[in-house]
């Protein structure tokens, strides 16, 4: 028997009368399958996932039926459904309810009314399985984003669900944490046999392990096949989703490859070696020599030292840097290397206790308030939401300048002209970033 069966599901939100968010979707999911759901933003992935859990189902017009273990989902008892269907959302922070790690792990079990003994063993089991024991007694507030999302997953797994639904769980994590997280999800699928349904942008990490990939576009399922075959379908349809496929898949089809499509870099390399016996010459990319002495640098940092508190270690230790005018410079480094701190120091949010910062040859502390940010320096923060203060995107831009032509020009560059009348919070992640960039510009 199928684990989930969706029959002709059609759904539209009350606000958009003619546009269907889900259009005649039918789908069968077997027990223990690992399914990737992909598609552009706004293609109905989240809407579909939310239908698989009654308490999260959005309001709107709906027809069609969903069965869970052969019973119509709406007839499944609320308590059973909470325990058996786990749902992990995007935002790692807002999903957490309590203030301590151990309490969060137990939250689901507490809600289900488990007794002490069961809770104790399940919580211990999950803490161990997810490697949480080192930070078991900590406050949730001190965890990193990756740890928080892992905690959300562990807290749901403590209820021993049969199905795990993940809605872009790694979209707010850094690449290393994201890869760790996805590996854990795979481990759950293979070791515990939990059915996994996931939507994800980072396909490279999960494509090789998934059983099925389902591609959605404007509320319809347009492709449903194994990951190995799905690339071909998309390539033949000339679908824009093809560009989101892992690199080996894209290279394979663009080079008119035959046979099985490689999914991992390793398979890709093997295929390349077999296919091209003469090793292709790798053209050297010309690299501009960066002069040590830049005349009139736009920005120069000299021996910056900074720490957040008196007894904490130094974050910046003698940072020196010169950046020429009208150039793009990238600062790279691992987590906690001091990248954001450097940027904050340039903007004067952090005041280094030693060293000098000069913008166009003028020391930062000699700028009068506000002058520094007029046509001189701007910073786009990590979380775009921290910049939005108004209820319309156009008002956001108007807060920065009154010149209408300028606003239109910037909106054009950032491709947000159609979004000008929306509330900033209603935009998708990528759109929010663009709107924030427009505001900063």
């Amino acid at each position, binding site marked *: 028997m199928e684990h989930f069966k969706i029959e002709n599901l059609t759904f539209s939100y009350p606000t958009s009368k003619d546009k269907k968010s889900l259009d005649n979707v039918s789908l069968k999911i077997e027990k223990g399958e690992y399914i990737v759901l992909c598609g552009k933003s706004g293609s109905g992935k989240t809407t579909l996932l939310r239908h698989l*859990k009654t*308490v*999260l189902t959005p309001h709107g017009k709906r027809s069609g039926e969903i069965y869970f273990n052969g019973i119509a989902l709406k007839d499944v008892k*609320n*308590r059973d459904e*909470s*325990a058996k*269907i786990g*749902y992990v*959302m995007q*935002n790692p*922070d*807002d*999903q*957490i*309810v*309590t*203030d*301590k790690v*151990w*309490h969060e792990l*137990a*939250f*689901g*079990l*507490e*809600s*289900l*009314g*488990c007794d*002490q003994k069961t*809770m104790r063993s399940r*919580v211990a089991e999950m803490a161990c399985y997810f490697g949480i024991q080192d930070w078991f007694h900590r*406050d*949730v*507030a001190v965890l990193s984003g990756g740890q928080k999302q892992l905690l959300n997953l562990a*807290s*749901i797994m403590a*209820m021993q669900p049969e199905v795990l639904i993940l809605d872009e769980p790694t979209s707010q994590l850094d690449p290393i944490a994201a890869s760790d997280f996805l590996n854990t999800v795979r481990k759950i699928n293979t070791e515990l046999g939990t059915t996994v349904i996931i939507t994800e942008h980072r396909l490279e990490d999960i494509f090789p392990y998934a059983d099925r990939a389902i591609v959605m576009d404007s509320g319809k399922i347009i492709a449903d096949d194994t990951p190995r075959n799905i690339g071909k379908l998309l390539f033949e349809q000339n679908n824009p989703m093809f560009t989101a496929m892992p690199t080996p898949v894209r290279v394979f089809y663009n080079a008119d490859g035959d046979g099985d499509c490689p999914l991992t870099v390793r398979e890709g390399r093997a295929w390349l070696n077999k296919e091209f016996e003469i090793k292709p010459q790798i053209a050297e990319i010309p690299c501009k020599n960066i002069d040590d002495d830049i005349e009139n640098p736009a920005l120069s940092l000299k021996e910056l030292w900074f720490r957040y508190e008196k007894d904490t270690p130094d974050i910046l230790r003698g940072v020196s840097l010169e950046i020429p005018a009208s150039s793009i410079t990238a600062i790279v480094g691992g987590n906690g290397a001091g990248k954001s701190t450097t940027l*904050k120091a340039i*903007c*004067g*949010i952090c005041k280094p206790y030693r060293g000098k910062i000069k913008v166009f040859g003028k020391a930062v502390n000699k700028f*009068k*308030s*506000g002058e*520094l*940010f*007029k046509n001189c320096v*701007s*910073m786009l*923060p990590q*979380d775009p*939401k*921290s*910049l*939005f*203060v108004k209820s319309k995107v156009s008002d956001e831009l108007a807060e*920065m300048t009154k010149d209408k032509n300028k606003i239109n020009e910037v909106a054009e560059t950032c491709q947000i002209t159609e979004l000008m009348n929306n509330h900033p919070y209603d935009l998708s992640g990528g759109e929010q970033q663009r709107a924030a960039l427009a*505001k900063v510009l």
Partner: protein
Amino acid sequence: MKDDAFSKLHPAVNLLFFIGAICFGVLLQHPVYLLAGIFASGVYYFMLNGRKGVKTILLMIPLFIFITLFNPIVNTRGVTVLFSYLNRPYTLEALIYGVAVAATFVLMLLWFGCYGKVLTGDKFTCLFGNLAPSLSLLLVMVFRMIPNLLQKAKQIIGARSSIGKGTAEKSSIKDKLGSGMTVIGVLTSWALEGSITTSDSMRSRGYGTSKRTSFMVYRMTKTDWILSFIMLLLLGVVIFFAANGGMNAEFLPERNITPINGFNIIGFITYLGYLLIPAALNVKEVIQWNISKSKI
């Protein structure tokens, strides 16, 4: 001190101790007992807070003197008039009573300081979780929300000042107010947005489907039982002596303080012993550690 031996015990034992210490701190007005209270609370406060604690304890001295000197001004009862001012007497008894009030006040502050360090929010909610699960969950969520909001506010202020919309030191009060209001506005909509996700997450984990239970991360160990027993025993002895009048002290209008004699000194020693339990546990741990170290 981070690894305080007393804090590692079951929260119920901690709570029992503080209830005893604080109740008797208020009830026993006998100067010797007050002195014992100040001494014990000061020692334990220092153990919990280290060098920072000394500063707080030293700050208590001016407070102590102030309350002592201030009491006779509002309270004119007492038989021994020291001097008069504006036709009001300033009496010796009121002054001594002031000492007692000040001492009670100071030891209360110190005990509550220790209480805050030992019985953290999570321990408290853990204790009462089974009695009122919803209320304790509410408390837990508030504990989480406050630092969260502060952090977000910092982030917003940082983001705004990095695009030149922050407030400088010189800007007018009106500007500062305006900017503060914007930050609060953003914070509110952000928090509301987040709370939708939180409630989704709660409901999807079965909140409200059955009667809530509460997970106890702490377990009563043998040590916990033994210590609770000792505490109750000591408290019983103290109550016995208090009931027999061994700790009576009256200040107004006439001084009438029961002298410490060979008999009721047992009550005093018991009381001091009770109050020093947390400190003694720490000392015991240090000694034990040193012994086992010397054996290596």
